[in-house]
């Protein structure tokens, strides 16, 4: 489809395999010297957009990342996977710590309007804060239909047919474009970037903007009071019989 434009969100997060550590002052988690990568659900979103372009269902893909300078590495990965151009909405590292899904949604919806996007695809959640809000709020701000937790996306006469993962099963819905989709785990399996595409990505356009360029105020509305490790799980005990179990529970004052 010529002139069909897809906007994808690409958040830079601490790599899924990293054992996250709380900073000694409890203001957040350690990010220095820690491996970061593209949020896996966003990688799935990028892959889906690229496949749609390969099937000629889309003509252009734009990737957006909000955050500090290093987000450009994440955007380069997206470009190497097949995205056409990228927008980096840069924030100070300090500002980024208090950035919320609402801020990102406002930015994404502004960009979607400005760039005349027909479809926004973002991950269903980011694996760092696990919010699961950005897609939904972007849809609301744009007043577009949404199809969240997508595990299959197909075109059906001008609209999209989206299979969604819901509690206890799957649901297929039709959405009119423009729309906002969020990708679930089983939507696809992201490709490896090829070496030639990594080199080509270097030459693809990447522009840097500020939240204020989109009229978005990212002053924090929330304050992080304290970040703490989850309590360490206590070792359990094996009991031989129901009687013993009851005795133990009584001893512990639980029954």
């Amino acid at each position, binding site marked *: 489809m010529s002139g069909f434009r897809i906007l994808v969100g690409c958040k830079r997060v601490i*790599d*899924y*395999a*990293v*054992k996250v550590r709380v900073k000694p002052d409890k203001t957040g988690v350690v990010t*220095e*010297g*820690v*491996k970061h990568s593209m949020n*896996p659900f966003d990688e799935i979103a990028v892959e889906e957009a690229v496949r749609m372009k390969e099937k000629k269902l889309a003509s252009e893909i734009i990737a957006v990342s909000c955050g500090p300078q290093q987000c450009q*590495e994440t955007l*380069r*990965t997206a470009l*190497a996977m097949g995205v056409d151009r990228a927008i980096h909405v840069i924030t100070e590292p300090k500002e980024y710590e208090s950035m919320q899904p609402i801020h990102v949604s406002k930015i994404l919806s502004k960009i979607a309007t400005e760039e005349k996007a027909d479809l926004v695809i973002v991950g269903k*959640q980011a*694996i760092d804060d*696990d919010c*699961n809000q950005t897609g939904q709020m972007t849809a609301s701000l744009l007043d577009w239909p949404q199809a969240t*937790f997508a595990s299959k996306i197909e075109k059906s006469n001008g609209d999209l047919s989206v299979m969604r*993962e819901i*509690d*206890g099963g799957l649901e297929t819905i039709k959405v009119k474009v423009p729309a906002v989709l969020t990708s*679930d*785990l089983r939507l696809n*399996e992201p490709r*490896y*970037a*090829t*070496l*030639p595409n*990594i*080199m080509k*990505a*270097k030459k693809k356009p990447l522009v840097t903007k500020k939240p204020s360029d989109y009229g978005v105020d990212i002053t924090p509305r929330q304050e992080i009071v304290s970040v703490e490790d989850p309590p360490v799980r206590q070792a359990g005990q094996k009991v031989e019989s129901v009687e013993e179990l009851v005795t133990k529970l009584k001893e512990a004052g639980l029954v």
Partner: protein
Amino acid sequence: MAALRRTSRLLRHVLCNSRTTTVVQTRKIGEIWVDGSCINPALGLTEEQKQIQKVATDYAKNELFPNMAKWDEEEIFPVDTLKKAGELGFGAIYCREESGGTGLNRQDASVIFEALSQGCVSTTAYISIHNMCAWMIDEFGNKELSQKWIPQLSTMEKLASYCLTEPNHGSDAANLSTTAKQVGDKFILNGSKAFISGGGDTDVYIVMCRTGEQGPKGISCMLVEKGSPGLAFGKKEKKVGWNSQPTRAVIFEDCEVPASNLIGELGDGFKIAMRGLNGGRVNIASCSLGAAQSSIQLTRDHLKVRKQFGKTLDSFQHLQFTLADMATKLVTSRNIVRMAARALDEDWSEKVALCSMAKYFATEECSKICNDALQLHGGYGYLKDYAVQQYVRDIRVHQILEGTNEIMRLLISRDLLTDGERKYS
């Protein structure tokens, strides 16, 4: 495989989805603590190199490492995995883009081979030999040869082998005795090559053979296709390591090769073979780096969990110091390997000696590192359930092939002792 890769990516994440099961993951190579540590192989690389390294590391982690024990045990040459690597651009890394190669440089290639070999040394080492052959065709072959072969070698749909060693001429390769006689528009080859990596299973053989006088100047380089009349192979050798690739003798009995398959000019063969090997030495040294990197990671993790005398092993100073020695040897080796790669990229006249030093030093030190890693695993290190023993076995041969480490010292000392123009550089 697909499902596995995806699950492993997202494991440890309790996803807000009832059908997602959390998988308990066994240790993986390229462990995350390495970022931000002194052995991080990404230190000092450009952004682009880091992206390339990431793809190669991901590929090693997902496609090679889970199979390396099986390929070793069952002696499987993983042709499909090679083709997949070819699709990503790993088949002709430093061939020119115009010919269908990837167009990266030797430093990039070194980073790639190091990353890949963490997942399987033997498979990566074969990929490195294949790359060396592709470069020889691209660099010295005429336009027809390079246009015909580089695209197919780049995707690894066709695989290549390097044929220099003979049963009676190993280190003394300049005196090789396989002959090629020109008859009309053909060369007729007679003789045999020994220890040919990929031999019998590959499609293209880059053969050094004698077309003229004794010594290096009488040698020419030919491309021999599998299926040529008179081309045969010996039995598959049983080896200590490098078991995911076959090694066989390649035999020529009045083997007919079109004259147009001559690479370079008559008499250029030895020079071409040595120029190829300069890069080959950097590549094979890079494969040792990957094995050492992975072995150190495994050892560090083992020391932190294994308890003896009521304490974890990482609390004994002897073991701490051994680990420090291993890390220091690794980073020093990496430095000289990357310097030699740079010498090739920038065509320094000292490149022969620097490539020799890199190969000599890195393959020796990395073998020590892997051996120490095995030692620090105690009895477990000797078991095939643990990867360290395979790294030890797989990189042992790097001290022998592509010029033994004795021959490396011969080249280094020659560089120091020769006055005036240096040989073969």
